[in-house]
């Protein structure tokens, strides 16, 4: 049971190991705040959709199971979208397009297809929670590196001395790709040993 929960953190980390959900990972990781917001929103959708899908898996004809899953996911994303717009409008605005795009985050459909469609409700919930937190963790790691290098800040607080000249490229698009590539390389190196 515990294994279903913890495997998402490192061993099967959806971002670093399985390379899923790259678009939101790279797009919102320019600040730690955005990364955590995005991670938690995706975790909520992942847990709810995993529970729902594992409940309905026996009633959905095999031929249309993907469209059915997508509708379930899209409904939860709509809920998250509205709740965030109402309670955290600033975060909602800075994540922008990427909230509705949680629908097409391959982690969510991937887990629905690979796990929730085959396992019971409780296990699916744990799997969703673990994977979601693994995703949040990965996002936060990338965002921490990018925010410190690119702005000298962490969660908006100055951590490097003000004499540090921010490496602006780290918070722009190229920085996202390069930090991600180096981190993936590091993960691979660790696994080889």
């Amino acid at each position: 049971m515990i294994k279903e929960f913890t495997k998402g953190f490192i061993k099967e980390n959806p971002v670093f190991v399985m390379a899923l959900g790259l678009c939101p990972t790279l797009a919102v990781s320019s600040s730690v705040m955005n990364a955590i917001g995005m991670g938690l929103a995706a975790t909520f959708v992942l847990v709810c959709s995993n529970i729902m899908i594992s409940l309905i898996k026996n009633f959905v004809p095999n031929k249309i199971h993907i469209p059915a899953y997508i509708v379930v996911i899209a409904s939860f994303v709509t809920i998250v979208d509205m709740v965030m717009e109402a309670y955290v409008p600033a975060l909602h605005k800075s994540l922008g397009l990427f909230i509705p795009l949680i629908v097409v985050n391959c982690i969510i459909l991937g887990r629905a297809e690979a796990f929730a469609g085959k396992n019971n409700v409780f296990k699916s919930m744990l799997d969703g929670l673990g994977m979601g937190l693994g995703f949040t963790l990965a996002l936060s790691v990338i965002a921490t590196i990018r925010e410190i290098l690119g702005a000298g800040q962490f969660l908006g607080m100055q951590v490097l001395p003000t004499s540090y000249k921010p490496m602006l490229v780290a918070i722009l698009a190229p920085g996202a790709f390069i930090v991600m590539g180096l981190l993936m390389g590091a993960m691979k190196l660790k696994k080889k040993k």
Partner: protein
Amino acid sequence: MEFIGKIFVMAIAAIFVQNFVLMRFLGLCPYIGVSKKLDSAIGMGMAVIFVMTMASTFTWLIQSYLLIPLKLEFLQTIAFILTIASLVQLVEMIIQKLAPALYKALGVYLPLITTNCAVLGVAILNINENYSFIEAILNGLFGGVGFTLVLILMAGIREKLEKAELPRAMKGMPIAMIVAGSMALAFLGFSGLKL
């Protein structure tokens, strides 16, 4: 003449300045996944151009003539993703019938166009930016062209990289990300263009 000028500006903006993959981070999964071989990159690119144009057309019509009059804007996400899923199914059937070899080469990635965020992304962007019908279609078309351009460039680079000597840990995905980073750096140069 003014109209042609406007189209030109939109093309440059969507292909280079605001490239979907490198600047907006949309459609990265196929960008990394299908860029190992040049042939499949070209096939995938064509499929994406087609689906993005069609998706822009249909989602704009659905938004303007169905969702807004019925005050159902909150169903936007669900309605759009279903439209895109049906379109992809259609394209899949057509390619399977007309070009079985291409169908085999694209394999699993064809159904995955549904979860290509560039497609849903362009549909939502068109609505958010208040584009007119023509502008929405053009944005979809040029967005797809921009995607295909970087996909093909990437596939060309990665075919060469296969033979390069690399540290073992950097092989495959990590080096692909670094290459993408360098390409993004090059594309950053376009952002100085005043349109």
